């Protein structure tokens, strides 16, 4: 019989799969996941889900939360706010999850938020934009948290670094999308506090392929540094255009969305010498041993490589956000002492000193992000690699 070995093998595999996870065997605590696994944000959403699954497996191997394992129920939001909203409700009303991790984009976050706030669902988002926890016209954020750094944190990091280098006159090139708009607003708002003068400002279309004209105009104002605020390939295009201009050039600073192997690949030689703030993931080996994040970051990279994720989704500055969201959730649950939404929310906003991959989280009722300037490092591209900038 030819198929007998195959049959035995598959039965063995089934047995393996159904064997309970080591360490935690009680009733699982259900956690919902919303990730943009298709559509324009798929390149962010897919690795986010993989990291979330990896982290949950790791937490369960360590005994879960108070003896109970975590179980992830996740859906693809198709990068669409309407579908994100639908899936959030399915998670709560049909799957009865305790809390939600995600979604991936700011638009989806705002669409989901209305429902989760009204129905008191703790939601830890991995969205870049600040509106979800900004309050004001974007509504209350009592139940909404997010793990990526705020835009203002990144701006402060850059300004402090530049001030240290005696730079006082800058020019800015910002994207026309929500991310760029937000960046420009913060750059302008925080400039006086650091004694920065914005000598010129231009904007770029993030899907554009040439920004030489804008760069030329910015250099006309003879700034000491040029700041580019955009995510995706446009940052690399701007670096290339900048490098191609003749003459002595000022510093080129990119925003905190750029540090990734993709930037190095796309910008090539033009990336050399560019500065940008990034999470410590990007320069883990260089961190001083005194840094409390170092062991966490190194362990994360180890797990990431062990899972084989590095091949399909090379590690970038954003890779750790889902991991940190789950860490916050675990610590919140342990502090709350019971899997209860109200208790979890109250515990979450009082968490302090949670050492994650993206920084040390100190949350307060006013600050539902909890990351400070110290969570970022200034990176400099040297010989095609990210190095800590001196």
């Amino acid at each position, binding site marked *: 019989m030819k198929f007998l070995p195959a049959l035995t093998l598959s039965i063995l595999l089934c047995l393996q799969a159904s064997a309970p996870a080591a360490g935690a065997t009680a009733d699982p605590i259900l956690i919902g996941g919303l990730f943009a696994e*298709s559509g324009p944000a798929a390149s962010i959403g897919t690795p986010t889900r993989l990291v979330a699954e990896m982290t949950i497996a790791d937490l369960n191997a360590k005994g879960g939360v108070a003896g109970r394992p975590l179980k992830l129920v996740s859906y693809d939001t198709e990068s669409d706010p309407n579908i994100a909203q639908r899936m959030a409700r399915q998670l709560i*009303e049909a799957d009865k999850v305790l809390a939600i991790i995600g979604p991936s984009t700011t638009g989806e976050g705002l669409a989901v938020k209305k429902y989760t706030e009204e129905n008191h669902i703790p939601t830890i988002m991995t969205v870049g934009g600040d509106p979800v926890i900004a309050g004001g016209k974007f509504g209350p954020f009592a139940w909404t948290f997010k793990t990526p750094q705020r835009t203002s944190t990144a701006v402060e990091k850059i300004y402090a670094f530049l001030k240290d280098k005696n730079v006082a006159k800058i020019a800015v090139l910002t994207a026309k999308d929500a991310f760029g708009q937000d960046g420009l607003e913060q750059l302008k708002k925080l400039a006086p506090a650091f004694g920065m003068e914005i000598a010129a400002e231009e904007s770029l279309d993030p899907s554009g392929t040439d920004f030489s004209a804008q760069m030329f105009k910015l250099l006309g104002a003879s700034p000491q540094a040029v700041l580019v605020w955009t995510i995706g390939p446009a940052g690399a295009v701007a670096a290339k255009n900048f490098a191609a201009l003749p003459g002595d050039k000022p510093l080129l600073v990119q925003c905190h969305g750029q540090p990734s192997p993709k930037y190095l690949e796309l910008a090539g030689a033009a990336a050399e010498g560019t500065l940008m703030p990034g999470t410590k993931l990007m320069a883990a080996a260089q961190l001083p041993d005194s840094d409390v994040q170092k062991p966490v970051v190194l362990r994360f990279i180890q797990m990431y490589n062990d899972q084989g994720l590095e091949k399909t989704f090379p590690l970038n500055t954003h890779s750790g956000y889902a991991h940190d969201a789950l860490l916050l959730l675990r610590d919140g649950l342990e502090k709350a002492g019971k899997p209860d939404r109200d208790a979890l929310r109250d515990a979450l906003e009082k968490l302090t000193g949670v050492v994650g991959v993206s920084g040390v989280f100190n949350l307060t009722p006013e600050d539902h992000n909890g990351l400070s300037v110290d969570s970022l490092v200034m990176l400099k591209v040297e010989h095609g690699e990210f190095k800590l900038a001196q």
Partner: protein
Amino acid sequence: MNSVAVSTQISARAAGTSLFAMLALLGFILPNYELLAVSQHLFLAINVMALNFCLGLGGQVSLAQGAFCGLGAYISALLHPVMPGASLAIAVAASGAAFALAAAVSRPLEKLGEGFLAMATLAVTLIFTNLILSFESITGGTAGMMVDLKLSLPFIGPISGDKPYYFLFLGLLLASVLVFARIRASRLGRALLACHDDPEAASACGVHRAAVRSLAFGLGGALSALAGMLQAHYSGFVSPGQYSLELSLKALLFLVIGGPGRILGPIAAVLILETALSKIHFLGEARVLVHGLLLALALLLGPVRSFHTGRARFTNAAGTDT
């Protein structure tokens, strides 16, 4: 009218009645989160019906449905804080503004040939998105804004929850179907169908083409605006991304699949295919491919084949004559 025509008309009416009865029943038996999905499909179905006014009746392709829908949503979102509780007046204002805008846009564009008209209406959608982005202080820019105030109807009061919205969407769809059927059977409808079959011949017969077509365009715009208004308050959030070209293209896709000028076909196409498409999550990016295949199949085999036969027959006949 012979007996066959009468009996098909009666059976179409029976099918329509049973479809709406079934949808109303669904409103009572589905759990709330499933109802949200059906409401989102109904929202799309209303936009498909709106497009049906200009494409199905007047034979004009429009890619501006998303813009009219967004116009209604933003007008409502911006006016409600100024006039809380005056939802009915705001609905009139929003649909009136969309009607005026759509009719005004349609009038000069009527002279354009089919492909060019599609491009011009596409530009309307892009201009709308850019306007929203430019007036960031009012509209919230790309990030959009929250819509906190509830719709409020006379005698009923503030509206919240899935069921009331579901029945509002269903009611609006039913109203659009009735208006559409009524117009199609009227003098205006026949004038539009004449424009659709052969614009020059229609003009020669004394049909004021620009006027009747802009009326159809305007009705479609107003209907989309009402749908947008409902959607804005139901989801509690407006952003330019919701009313982009994608919505216009989806409306066109489902209308072409279901058959322009028909009523039940397009609505059934939206409800069945959208439900089916939402169940094939596992396909990921390949869903776009499924959309494309559906469109290709509809163009090759579907009801749209008979769409331009009037004009085609005329030119063929002229060609063979010479």
